[in-house]
């Protein structure tokens, strides 16, 4: 375990030490004095699932939003696929974004479009030369992956919370990303649906060999999916380790997440 650590060492249990996301000394302040990130540093290796825990407002979502350029940090360095995303132009950043999938907490489905259109929209924007048959086939494949091919003609308002997250995940998967960032994938779902989503995350990792960062408060999800867990406190990485290590951590505050 590490305490108030500036630079994170590679995961102990990671088989390959091939960093795919490297964040160094990330700072972000909202308004005049709302210091959310105060020097977050972390490394995610290829094929690894990193879970980030922390209290609400501790900066977990801000960290992953900085990775995809949705939020601009005040200071620090973010390297994804060896490219410093903070120095990239918009077109260059978009090249990186296509290789990163982002699952929003709410699913963020386009509510004016059906499930088919939601998936096809993203695909058509990036692969303009695909025929309608090829688009349909890719949409069906993505829906099959999340087990919701019968929902293809439904509107987002007709879907339950769990289904919306699955469709959101299907939309993320359709571009075949190498990295997937999950922002609280099981929040607001019942225990059974949460477990289904967690198993889906694990399944995607095994089938597609993706690298993931999972922001969650759901310890069952963390236990199932995490190769490594980091705990954010006061804008810095406060603790790091496997689920089993942190469960028995000497710090009571860290242990309280696992009780």
């Amino acid at each position, binding site marked *: 375990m590490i305490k108030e650590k500036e630079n994170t060492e590679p995961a102990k249990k990671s088989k390959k030490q091939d960093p795919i996301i490297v964040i160094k000394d990330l700072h972000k302040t909202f308004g005049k004095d709302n210091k959310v990130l105060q020097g977050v540093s972390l490394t995610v290796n290829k094929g690894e699932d990193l879970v980030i825990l922390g209290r609400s407002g501790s900066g977990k979502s801000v960290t992953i939003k900085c990775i*995809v*350029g*949705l939020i601009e940090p005040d200071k620090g360095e973010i390297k994804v696929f060896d490219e410093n995303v903070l120095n990239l132009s918009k077109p260059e950043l978009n090249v990186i974004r*296509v290789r990163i999938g*982002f699952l929003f*907490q*709410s699913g*963020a489905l386009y509510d004016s479009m059906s499930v088919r259109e939601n998936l096809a929209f993203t695909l058509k*924007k990036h692969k303009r030369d695909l025929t309608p048959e090829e688009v349909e086939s890719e949409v069906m494949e993505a829906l099959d992956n999340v087990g919701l091919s019968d929902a293809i003609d439904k509107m987002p308002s007709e879907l339950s919370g769990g289904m919306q997250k699955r469709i959101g995940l299907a939309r993320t998967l359709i*571009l075949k990303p190498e990295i997937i960032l999950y922002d609280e994938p099981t929040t607001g779902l019942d225990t059974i649906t949460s477990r289904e989503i967690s198993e889906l995350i694990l399944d995607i990792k095994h089938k597609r060999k993706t690298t993931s960062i999972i922001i969650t408060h759901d310890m069952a999800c963390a236990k199932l999916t995490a190769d490594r867990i980091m705990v954010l406190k006061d804008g810095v990485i406060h603790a790091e380790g496997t689920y089993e290590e942190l469960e028995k951590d000497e710090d009571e505050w860290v242990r309280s997440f696992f009780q």
Partner: protein
Amino acid sequence: MILTLKNTFAEIGNATVFAKQFFKEVFVPPYETKEFLKQCYVIGYKSLPLVAITGFIMGLVLTLQSRPTLVKFGAESWLPGMVALSLIREIAPVITALICAGKISSGIGAELGSMKVTEQIDAMEVSAINPYNYLVVTRILACTLMVPILVFFADAVGIIGGYVGINIHGDVNFYRYLTQILQSLEFLDIIPATVKTFFFGFFIGMIGCYKGFNASNGTESVGKAANSAVVTASLTIFIIDMVAVQITDLFF
């Protein structure tokens, strides 16, 4: 007071930057033709009934209200020309633009505001899709082109309303009514009035998009965005109209 003034100027500055981005992106591919045509249908075609009813009432009421005064001066025969001139030069453009501000600008503000707070715009951004190009450029362009067409339509329906108004108290042949209108109209009555409607359309779309795109988090802000879009767009229409009238007065 000073803070309000400061915020107003900051808002104008931000809106200007937002509008500037439109001119930067409008000519850059990919062109979202399908979404643009969809917006033309929503903004133009779906507003036709509302504009038709208001246009007809404008023409009818204007005729009925003006008639007694003209009768007093024995100038009843000027009625068709006067009604047509008032409608084409001022009333139809401004009233139609105000209706569009209420219907279209608020609709765009609420739609984009809702997309913003439910992270749909962020979802586009992280999928490497340019949300400004897809959502904003198409809507502003559709507004800029559809509002002038709606104004032409309101002019035509208003003239028919005027004809009905004249025939409540008299018996005027439609051909004669139209001839009188065409005799009193000049090309220069139509051009400045048409040019300003493009500006009305642009600002209606731009303000709706700006308010929606900048909605802060929370559902409350969606209502605020829609409301603020109507108020700002309506005020802007009057300001543009005032400037347009002054310019027309200077040159024609």
